[in-house]
């Protein structure tokens, strides 16, 4: 063994030094390249940009080399050549040169010295003036005046020379006008390529500087470095279809109204805005980051951080649909959500025993979707025994007032049947109630299918219902039609005979029972008691009004802050192959709520894929607002409620199920907000009495049998309150001559209005029938509508043709001339 002081540590030092150098090199590489993947993306972006410009240049060149363009170009080029030659040959060139030289000479030899003289004299004048102000002697004045005279003389000489020069300049220019003209004409041919070349040189002149882009908004506690990779996000044009080079989709909505420098990215899209070292980290899709990025339309979950209401926001369609779904499909019946009204979407079941047949009730409870495709009631997946118990319980709930015979009855009085059918048609029941797969076009109205309805309900109940729906179900969307008893009876007769479930009849006949049988059945009290327990357990009272359950609380959890629920708190139960994220869990829960463990009560809903996306988006939006107050956008809603007698009629007839006034209602039927300015009063009253056929069959307004007084109330309100002050009468519309009408007709046909409007029976039926436009519409409305169809609502289908005033006037006159008598077409519905 060597002594310590004789040992050499060189090897150890060498190894340590090597390690140190390697680590150093790695550290520098990591710092410059490794943890900065955005540099790569930025380089790719710039090269894509250059490629794009090169492609554009290629295209331009191709276009330029195309035969047509070349021909034109050559023409102009030749003209230019000719002009140039002429210039040379005709001696213009010589004159040009001579003029140029002369101008030069005059400038240098004559003008300059003269100007020098002039300034010299002027200076002397100034000097004299100053001296004169000092001593104010007469001599000085004389000298001063003389000098001033000299100065003005010199000035006039100079002016003369300048005038000569100007004249010569003009002559010179006149010689080259042709050449200049052709050169100007030539420019547009090559301008695009030149511009592109310029852009290319700018980009390639020096290497683009790669840098981190950061948006720092202290108010939102945000530091977003997203743009470091997504370089093209706010460009005017997208340079590629692939991320991260794409431009922001829908930028005319999103970036225009939310400029990047004021909002950043993560306030909507979440994710880890400050991260730059890897894609997953930046998107927040790593363990322990609680807010992974919301991609695409899921980002709409963030709209309500600032916007109080989203249903009128372009770009927030998905979350608005979710908001609508959660009320209309009954989610709020079991789950409390702050800010959403608790509405019981189902009909009251308090006396359902005297309304529906026992058999139908059992079939319905088994699977509502089978009975009625548009059914909102979800499938509770009850066992047969449970179904019997519940049905027994409901059977027990009846007053015993009505004669509970099922309506189905094929053998009826023929005359009543016919009259009933006419009433059925004029009342346009088919608009809301589908039958045999047609009709039911009104969105968000879930009226029962009529195809087999007679086998479902009791005849007496149907009679009472048609007479006054709101007596049974105050929140119903069905209007109160004001039928007389006789009319109602005829209708019931028709429906009883027409809408029979023949399959069930066949079944019953096989089983040997009569077709018409009693609805009521004596229910077993023990079973009914079990049924009551089940009703309480499954929370049926959340959607249906049931006697005895008025004070019960909702059975589901409160969802007000579900969007911020941490994934550790979600119960994955026995499901093993589900990804551990909030989004996955929520989607799985919506699609199959009971998969996680036994004993879950949430039923299975029949949503479409789009619905599911909207609901997930909505649920994500359920969290606290964390933005500062100056980011809030208050809803610009009026909270309209129709008042007074008009309001009562509207409520009775449920006008706003189809129509819209201000911010309330639907858009199946026309928006009535400014109806008073749109239609003439006389026509309006006629229409209310007996609605014209302006629209195709499944869109026509029913006949409500209003009394004269009611019609007056409605017409008064509409013409006085629902007006737009900006649409004023146009006195200068002038006389309607046949010439004007002819021209208007020509424009009508030229522009192709008959694609969407009918006059008589020709044309399309996207817009209303114009046969009675003169009777119906005010001329000022016609003019305004033709000029700017989107004035009263940006989603109006009619296009804006960009017509000028003259064309508009002719068209207006033509349309104002269309009256019922003239066209001779109208079928007034006057049963």
């Amino acid at each position: 063994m060597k002594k310590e002081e004789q040992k050499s540590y060189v090897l150890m030092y060498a190894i340590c030094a090597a390690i140190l150098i390697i680590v150093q090199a790695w550290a520098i590489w990591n710092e410059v390249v490794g943890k900065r993947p955005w540099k790569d993306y930025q380089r790719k972006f710039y090269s894509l940009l250059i490629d794009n410009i090169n492609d554009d240049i290629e295209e331009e060149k191709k276009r330029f080399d195309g035969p047509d363009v070349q021909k034109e170009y050559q023409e102009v080029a030749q003209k230019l050549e000719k002009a140039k030659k002429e210039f040379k040959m005709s001696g213009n060139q010589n004159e040009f040169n001579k003029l140029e030289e002369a101008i030069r000479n005059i400038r240098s030899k004559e003008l300059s010295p003269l100007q020098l003289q002039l300034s010299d004299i002027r200076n002397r004048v100034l000097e004299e003036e100053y001296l004169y102000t000092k001593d104010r002697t007469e001599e000085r004045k004389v000298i001063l005046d003389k000098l001033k005279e000299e100065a003005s003389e010199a000035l006039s000489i100079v002016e003369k020379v300048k005038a000569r020069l100007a004249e010569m300049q003009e002559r010179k220019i006149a010689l080259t006008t042709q050449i200049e003209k052709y050169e100007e004409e030539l420019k547009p041919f090559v301008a695009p390529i030149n511009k592109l070349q310029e852009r290319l040189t700018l980009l390639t002149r020096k290497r683009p500087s790669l840098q981190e882009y950061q948006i720092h908004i202290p108010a939102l506690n945000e530091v977003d470095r997203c743009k470091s990779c997504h370089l093209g996000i706010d460009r005017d044009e997208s340079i590629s279809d692939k991320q991260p080079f794409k431009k922001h989709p829908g930028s005319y909505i999103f970036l225009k109204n939310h400029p990047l420098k004021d909002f950043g990215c993560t306030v909507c899209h979440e994710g880890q805005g400050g991260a730059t070292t890897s894609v997953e980290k930046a998107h927040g899709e790593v363990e322990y980051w609680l807010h992974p990025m919301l991609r695409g339309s899921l980002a709409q979950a963030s709209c309500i951080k600032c916007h109080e209401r989203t249903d009128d926001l372009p770009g927030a369609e998905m979350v608005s649909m979710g908001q609508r779904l959660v009320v209309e499909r009954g989610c709020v019946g079991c789950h409390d959500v702050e800010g959403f009204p608790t509405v019981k979407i189902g009909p009251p079941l308090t006396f359902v025993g005297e309304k529906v047949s026992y058999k139908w009730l059992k079939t319905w409870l088994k699977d509502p979707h089978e009975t009625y495709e548009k059914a909102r009631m979800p499938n509770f997946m009850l066992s047969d025994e449970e179904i019997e118990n519940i049905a027994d319980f409901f059977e027990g709930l009846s007053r015993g007032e009505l004669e509970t015979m099922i309506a189905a009855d094929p053998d009826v009085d023929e005359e009543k049947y016919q009259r009933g059918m006419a009433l059925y048609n004029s009342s346009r029941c088919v608009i809301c109630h589908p039958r045999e797969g047609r009709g039911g076009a009104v969105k968000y109205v879930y009226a029962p299918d009529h195809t087999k309805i007679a086998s479902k309900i009791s005849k007496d109940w149907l009679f009472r219902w048609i007479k006054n729906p709101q007596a049974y179900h105050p929140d119903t969307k069905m209007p109160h039609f004001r039928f007389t008893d006789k009319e109602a009876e005829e209708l019931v007769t028709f429906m009883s005979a027409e809408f029979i479930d023949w399959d069930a009849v066949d079944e019953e006949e096989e089983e040997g029972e009569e077709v018409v049988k009693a609805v009521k059945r004596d229910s077993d009290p023990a079973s009914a008691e079990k049924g009551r327990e089940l009703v309480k357990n499954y929370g049926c009272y959340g959607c249906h009004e049931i006697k005895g359950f008025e004070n019960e609380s909702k059975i589901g959890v409160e969802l007000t802050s579900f969007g911020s629920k941490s994934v550790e708190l979600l119960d994955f139960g026995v499901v093993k192959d589900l990804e551990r994220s909030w989004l996955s869990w929520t989607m799985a829960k919506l699609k199959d709520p009971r998969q996680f463990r036994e004993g879950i009560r949430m039923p299975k809903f029949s949503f479409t894929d789009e619905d599911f996306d909207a609901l997930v988006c909505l649920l994500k939006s359920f969290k606290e607002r964390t933005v500062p107050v100056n980011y809030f956008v208050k809803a610009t809603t009026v909270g309209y409620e129709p008042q007074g007698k008009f309001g009562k009629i509207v409520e009775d007839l449920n006008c706003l199920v189809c129509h819209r006034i201000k911010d309330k209602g639907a858009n199946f039927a026309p928006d009535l907000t400014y109806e008073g300015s749109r239609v003439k009063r006389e026509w309006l009253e006629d229409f209310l009495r007996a609605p014209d056929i302006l629209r195709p069959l499944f869109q026509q307004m029913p006949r409500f049998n209003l009394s004269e007084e009611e019609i007056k109330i409605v017409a008064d309100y509409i013409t006085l309150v629902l007006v737009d002050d900006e649409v004023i009468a146009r006195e200068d519309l002038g006389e309607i001559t046949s010439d004007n009408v002819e021209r208007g007709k020509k424009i009508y046909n030229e522009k192709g209005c008959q694609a969407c409007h009918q006059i008589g029976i020709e044309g399309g039926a996207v817009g209303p029938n114009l046969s009675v436009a003169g009777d119906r519409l005010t001329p000022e409305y016609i003019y305004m509508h033709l000029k700017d169809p989107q004035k009263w609502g940006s989603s109006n289908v009619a296009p804006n043709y960009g017509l000028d005033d003259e064309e508009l006037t002719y068209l207006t006159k033509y349309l104002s001339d269309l009256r019922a008598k003239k066209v001779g077409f109208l079928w007034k519905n006057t049963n």
Partner: protein
Amino acid sequence: MDKKSDAKIKEVVTSSQIWKSIFRRKHDDTKRSRVLAIVGNFFMHLHPISVARHALALKFTWCMGGVTFLLFLFLTLGGVLLMFYYHPTTGEAYWDIKDLHYSVPFGKILRNTHRWGGHLMVITVMVHMFRVFMTGSYKRPREFNWAIGVILLVFTLLLSFTGYLLTWDQLGMWAITVGTNMARATPFIGHEGPFGEQLGMTAHNDVRFALLGGSVVGANALLRAYVWHCIAIPLIVTFLIGVHFWRVRKDGFSGSL
């Protein structure tokens, strides 16, 4: 350059007033001036003027004490650099660490070396202690140094503990919560410890309160941890390290010489 001009330059420089005011003694190669160079220098006078080469045997000491000290220097330097980017407030602490990671040049490696260095220092300290024990270097006359060493161990652990909270994440917050909850069970001075109540200790005036600056782990706790971690404990540790090294030199190596 030829030697003559070298010598001349050297002559001129070393006889200038500036040179003489900085370097008090001549630097010719005599034994005396070599000794004086060590003894008369602030940074070096803690070192012995000469050391036998075999005293540096790695096998005997494993050099762990030196490594620990080296780590301490790195941690201090790194810590100072980190302090430029760190705000000890509850709203900013966590995000500053994130920014160090993603945005600051070399911030990732700076923060990571500081963190790993802290862990390593604890390990090397323990290995050092183990070595000292195995070589019997705690025996007479080195008992006092051993005691100083133990106190240094405690302060090293405290440095780790206080530094852990500064990232203001779940790990740190709960670690400190557990630690200070243990503190409240101390006899006499903790409000949940034996005889604490009798002495009038409550959650708002016991030793836990003193440590946290409050009754919860919040902004005050963070600030106090910051002050302990960056100023108070390093000062104490520096002082104790000085004493520790001084005793090592004075007592000499316990190993084979």
